[in-house]
């Protein structure tokens, strides 16, 4: 090793490594920084240690070396007015709070169009990482700076999990940047395409079809989803072509989108297929009954149902795009459910010559299990409030309808359910509640507490939702006082403390944001 030593220090290290008894250091001049302190009269081992001590000190004194590094770019500006310090503190507490309050407060802040203080960005983004339901609101709150942080850090940007959503942030002004389309990652390109689609649907379609052949399978799948914004009959030829795509998920997306275009060939074919099989009839016992028959295999084949993703092979096909639960389904009912989930709802009114309420009430009990969820799914996908409201009155209506149905009807249904001790609806009810719902919850709580003398799981659910749903412009002091008395008597003051804190956080945030 001595042969390669270029400096006194290198020679010293080599000699020490082999042992100065075995090999003396090569005779080289010491570094001038330490040379004057070295003495010639030392024995070899001491000379090595002395050199090492001086070198260590010189190295220590010169401190940390320069590194080759590039400064990171500054975060994009955010000109929204800043969230007040009090509001930011309340939001920080809300992030730690139970689900109903956490989601409500995040949505509230997102709607308020305020800039969160820099110190809140990371807690918000970490919440979004672990809690998918909080993502949409967080993405709106953090704005373009969220994407900036995710790009610059490995833990927030971990596996690009949040990036796609962050790039889609409407607060960002980068969606006009064509560079994103030509050079961006797929999430940025989807964002650009969605933005363009909002401004000029035809241009977006042209841009997508132009380079379609050169896109990879996973990219095609994600890019195609951008067409959902501003979908119209003009997109039909392209979507029809996508039905022949080699990638199954691309075909499924195209099938779903075609079904959403009321005048599409797919809709027409499905409607023609189903029309002779669904009719309103009069039975002996009931006034009106909706009857179904299932199209035959030949009929399905003639309508190329298979090509449009209608599966006849039970629930194992994976073509369950309308999300209907197919457990234990026989294949005929399964076909009916798929068809009902895809056909645009106004068709039924025209075909059957009846209003949604009448059609829903004509569904027989044995059919309801299959038909009501399928029609509800269609109402949700098509965002049809009239149908959602009509379906809501059915005893087996799924609670997901609460989100789009007429709020007054929703309130009636929830109040009715609360009287029977059913609290499930509270999760889906828009907040703040109408005063009648709040009163009904307090009443249901009192009834529960009178009967059980303690906090039941239903009571606990009510206690979690009350601080989120209460309309704050009404004084609920008397009812809350009753809660406190019940809590002291029933030994669950710790749960009430959570209620108090939640109500406090919400009151503060509402006050700060208005």
């Amino acid at each position, binding site marked *: 090793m001595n042969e390669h030593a270029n400096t006194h220090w290198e020679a010293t290290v080599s000699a020490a490594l082999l042992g100065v008894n075995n090999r003396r250091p090569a005779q080289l001049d010491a570094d001038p920084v330490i040379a004057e302190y070295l003495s010639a009269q030392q024995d070899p081992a001491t000379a090595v240690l002395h050199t090492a*001590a001086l070198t260590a000190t010189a190295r220590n004194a010169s401190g940390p070396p320069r590194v080759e590094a590039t400064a990171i770019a500054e975060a994009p500006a955010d000109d929204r007015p800043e969230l007040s310090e009090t509001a930011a503190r309340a939001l920080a507490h809300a992030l730690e709070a139970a689900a109903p309050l956490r989601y409500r407060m995040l949505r509230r802040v997102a709607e308020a169009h305020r800039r969160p203080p820099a110190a809140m960005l990371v807690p918000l983004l970490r919440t979004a990482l672990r809690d998918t339901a909080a993502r949409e609101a967080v993405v709106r709150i953090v704005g373009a700076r969220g994407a900036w*942080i995710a790009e610059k850090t490995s833990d927030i940007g971990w596996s690009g999990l949040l990036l796609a959503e962050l790039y889609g942030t409407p607060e960002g002004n980068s969606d006009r940047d064509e560079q994103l389309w030509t050079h961006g990652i797929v999430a940025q390109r989807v964002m650009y395409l969605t933005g363009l689609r909002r401004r000029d649907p035809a241009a977006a379609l042209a841009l997508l079809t132009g380079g379609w052949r050169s896109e990879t399978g996973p990219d095609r799948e994600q890019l195609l989803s951008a067409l959902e914004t501003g979908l119209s009959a003009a997109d039909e030829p392209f979507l029809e072509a996508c039905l022949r795509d080699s990638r199954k998920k691309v075909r499924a997306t195209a099938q779903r989108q075609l079904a959403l275009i009321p005048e599409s060939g797919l809709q027409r074919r499905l409607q023609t297929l189903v029309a002779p099989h669904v009719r309103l009839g009069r039975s002996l016992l009931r006034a009106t009954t909706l009857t179904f028959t299932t199209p035959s295999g030949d009929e399905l084949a003639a309508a190329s149902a298979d090509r449009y993703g209608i599966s006849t092979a039970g629930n194992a096909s994976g073509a369950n795009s309308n999300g209907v639960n197919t457990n234990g389904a026989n294949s005929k009912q399964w076909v009916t459910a798929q068809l009902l989930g895809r056909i645009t709802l106004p068709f039924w009114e025209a075909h059957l010559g009846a209003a949604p309420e009448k059609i829903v009430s004509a569904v027989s009990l044995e059919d309801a299990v299959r038909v009501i969820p399928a029609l509800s799914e269609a109402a949700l996908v098509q965002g049809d409030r009239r149908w959602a409201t009509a379906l809501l009155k059915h005893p087996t209506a799924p609670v997901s309808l609460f989100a789009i149905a007429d709020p007054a009807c929703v309130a009636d249904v929830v109040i009715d359910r609360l009287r029977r001790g059913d609290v499930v609806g509270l999760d889906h009810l828009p907040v703040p509640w109408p005063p009648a719902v709040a009163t009904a919850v307090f009443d249901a709580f009192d009834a529960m507490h009178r009967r059980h003398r303690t906090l039941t799981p239903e009571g606990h659910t009510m206690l979690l939702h009350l601080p989120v749903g209460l309309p704050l412009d009404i004084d609920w002091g008397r009812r809350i006082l009753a809660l406190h008395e019940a809590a002291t008597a029933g030994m669950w003051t710790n749960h009430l403390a959570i209620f108090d804190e939640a109500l406090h956080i919400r009151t503060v945030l509402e006050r700060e944001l208005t």
Partner: protein
Amino acid sequence: MESAAPDASSVGAGRKLATTAVWSGTGATATALWGSCAGSGKKPYRTIVDLRGPAFRCSCPSRKFPCKHALGLLLLWSAGEVAEAARTPGDAATWLDGRDTRAAVKATAPAKPADPERAAATAAQRADRVAGGIAELTMWLEDQVSQGFSGLDGDPYARFDPLAARLVDAQAPGLASRVRELPGVLTAGDPADWPDRLLMRFGELWALGVAHGRLSELDDDTVATVRRHVGYTVAKADVLSRPPVTDDWMAVGRRTEELDHITARHMWFYGADTGRYALTLEYVPTGGVFAARPPVGVAFRARLHFYPGSPGHRALIADENAVPGDPVSRTGVPPAATTIDHARRERARSVAADPWLRAEPATVRGRLAVAPGTGYALIDEHGESVALHVDPERWTTLVATTLGGPVGVVGELGVDGLLPLSVISDGQVIAL
């Protein structure tokens, strides 16, 4: 309040109890705070807080200290929800009196009868043992370079641990812990350069041994520095007898370190008038609770007594118990941020006085930067750069706090880079 809590979950639990709904029989005087908290059991928990300490007592079985009840009561009190009381109730008064009596006994108890002859004999005996340990260390080092230390990277612990154990026996714990760091030196950095790094560490140890052999020729400061690195302890009373430095001390950084069964807390303070950094080191058994200190960014008026030796950062706070209660005299002034070059020169000055120095406090102004690979760095306005020792999580906090703009970073400047402890944003010091 939150700095008194054992952990974050306790703060959360305390916050949930900070409501009048669960408390009864609460009251407060200038020095004490008490109340009964309804829990899951039949009998409420009785909680008493001595506000002078603060010290806590609660009848709950929680192993956390202070428990959530004490924290909740404190929060309730700070929210102004506890009424002033004229007199302290019986149980609280008994406990507080007991504390006073014990404190008085401790204060007035005469120190152990000093026996100068015996003390001198003990000191001489220790010096002999240390000298014996150092002679052994020096021989071991000479042996390594005479016979050659190639292959030592194969099983470093087997080579270094017995030596460290003998140095502990020789009452030189400072040297022992430096020897225990050696296996880590082999793996920290470019694998091809381990002989360089190790030989420099050998040199440092050897020089400490030489310096210890010549203590009588050195000035007082250097003697104290050498003795500190060898591992002689300085009695608290001796430190407290040194003249105090009074200033508005602002807490500018804190970090904890897990040692064997012990947690060490390093807290950096900065004095506005003296422009001086001070470091307090405290130790508790793992899982224990440190005494309350002001949170980072808060200043308090206090007298600090500095340990002898260079570079003169380590200090003790006089009137230990008065710290949390003392009103903050003013908002405090954070240290002025310098260029990286300036910080390097300051550090070199300290190394000149203490060649064995590891880290020097520094406040540097710059922008965050990334080095090729995964390195993080700070670049100042002159293009000078220094590596930042941060984990990805702390890096994220830095990125979000600075938003890519210039920022003052308070940290420990080591031989390889800067360990950031806090940032200065809008004149506020924010802990990382």
